[in-house]
């Protein structure tokens, strides 16, 4: 695999994480528990889409086959998406949604900070913009997790259940395959061991305040990065891609 193909795939991995997560968050639009959180979640979704757009546009450029951000977002098939399984997980109750975002935010912030030093100027620029958004996202999801954990008996129970249920999807975030390691050597991508250290520190910090138990590492789900997704993915894409596939080339 050439350096160019590796960079293309790396951009897609990050973009797909953000795109699929933003789609999940958009499912809350109009259904949020309170007005302010409805807006907070959809704001988040828009932040994620913004970064995904930058990454997809750059990916299309790197690939050099004339694919636009829309082509990549709406015309790829399930096996061609390379997001992790974490972001596909259903919204569940509000604790599930917050925990899913919290786990992603604790990974995404140190990742974005590290990427601002990437040897690839465009990735560094995209990350520079994402860092401020990521700081707020982590603050928002951390605050909610602390309120749930250190809240009522019911909120604590639901938060712990969400954490326990979602923990198996955290391993995939930090797997460094040959493609990734090649990019680390080129200074393009950061070493995920350092990112995991920041992730662990943030998790431990917040869980302690939330009086929640950090789940024990067990079996870790994988396959998302290779295009092998769970049963959720088909439904997500059916909704997300419906318009472009039913009316190809449609414009606003």
């Amino acid at each position: 695999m050439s350096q160019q193909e590796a960079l293309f795939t790396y951009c897609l991995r990050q973009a797909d994480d953000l795109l699929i997560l933003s789609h999940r968050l958009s499912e809350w639009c109009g259904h949020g528990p309170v007005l302010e959180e409805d807006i907070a979640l959809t704001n988040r979704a828009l932040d994620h889409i913004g970064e995904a757009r930058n990454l997809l546009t750059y990916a299309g450029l790197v690939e050099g086959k004339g694919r636009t951000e829309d082509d990549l977002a709406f015309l790829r098939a399930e096996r061609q998406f390379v997001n992790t399984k974490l972001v596909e997980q259903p919204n569940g109750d509000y604790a599930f949604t917050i925990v899913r975002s919290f786990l992603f935010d604790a990974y995404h912030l140190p990742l974005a900070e590290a990427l601002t030093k990437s040897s690839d100027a465009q990735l560094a620029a995209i990350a520079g913009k994402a860092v401020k958004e990521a700081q707020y996202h982590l603050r928002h999801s951390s605050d909610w997790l602390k309120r749930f954990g250190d809240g009522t008996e019911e909120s604590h129970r639901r938060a712990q259940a969400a954490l326990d249920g979602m923990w198996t999807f955290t391993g995939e975030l930090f797997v460094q395959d040959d493609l990734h390691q090649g990019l680390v050597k080129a200074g393009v991508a950061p070493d995920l061991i350092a990112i995991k250290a920041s992730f662990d520190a943030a998790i431990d910090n917040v869980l302690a305040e939330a009086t929640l138990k950090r789940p024990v590492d067990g079996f870790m789900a994988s396959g998302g990065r290779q295009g092998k997704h769970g049963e959720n993915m088909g439904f997500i894409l059916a909704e997300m891609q419906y318009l472009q596939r039913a009316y190809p080339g449609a414009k606003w």
Partner: protein
Amino acid sequence: MSNNPNNWPLWEIFIQSKRGLEHKHVGSLHAADPQMAIENARDVYTRRQEGQSIWVVPAGAISSSQPEDAAMLFDPADDKTYRHPTFYTMPEGAKYI
């Protein structure tokens, strides 16, 4: 005020658009405490670059004048021109005093 303990209190939100200017009242929202009120205000009232500083005040802390008293409170100032600095020339370039 409802007696339901699950209701979050109401907060009035003030946004300052530029340093040095006044915080303007932009609306209200519900939140459990000041920290959440500030985050909610950031999400609800600063989406379009409305400002760079947020004040949140519990609605109950604000007392207001009664509309019935408006005539008594404000009409007497109508015909007292000597209270206005109309004979003062504004310095050049001064936009806000």
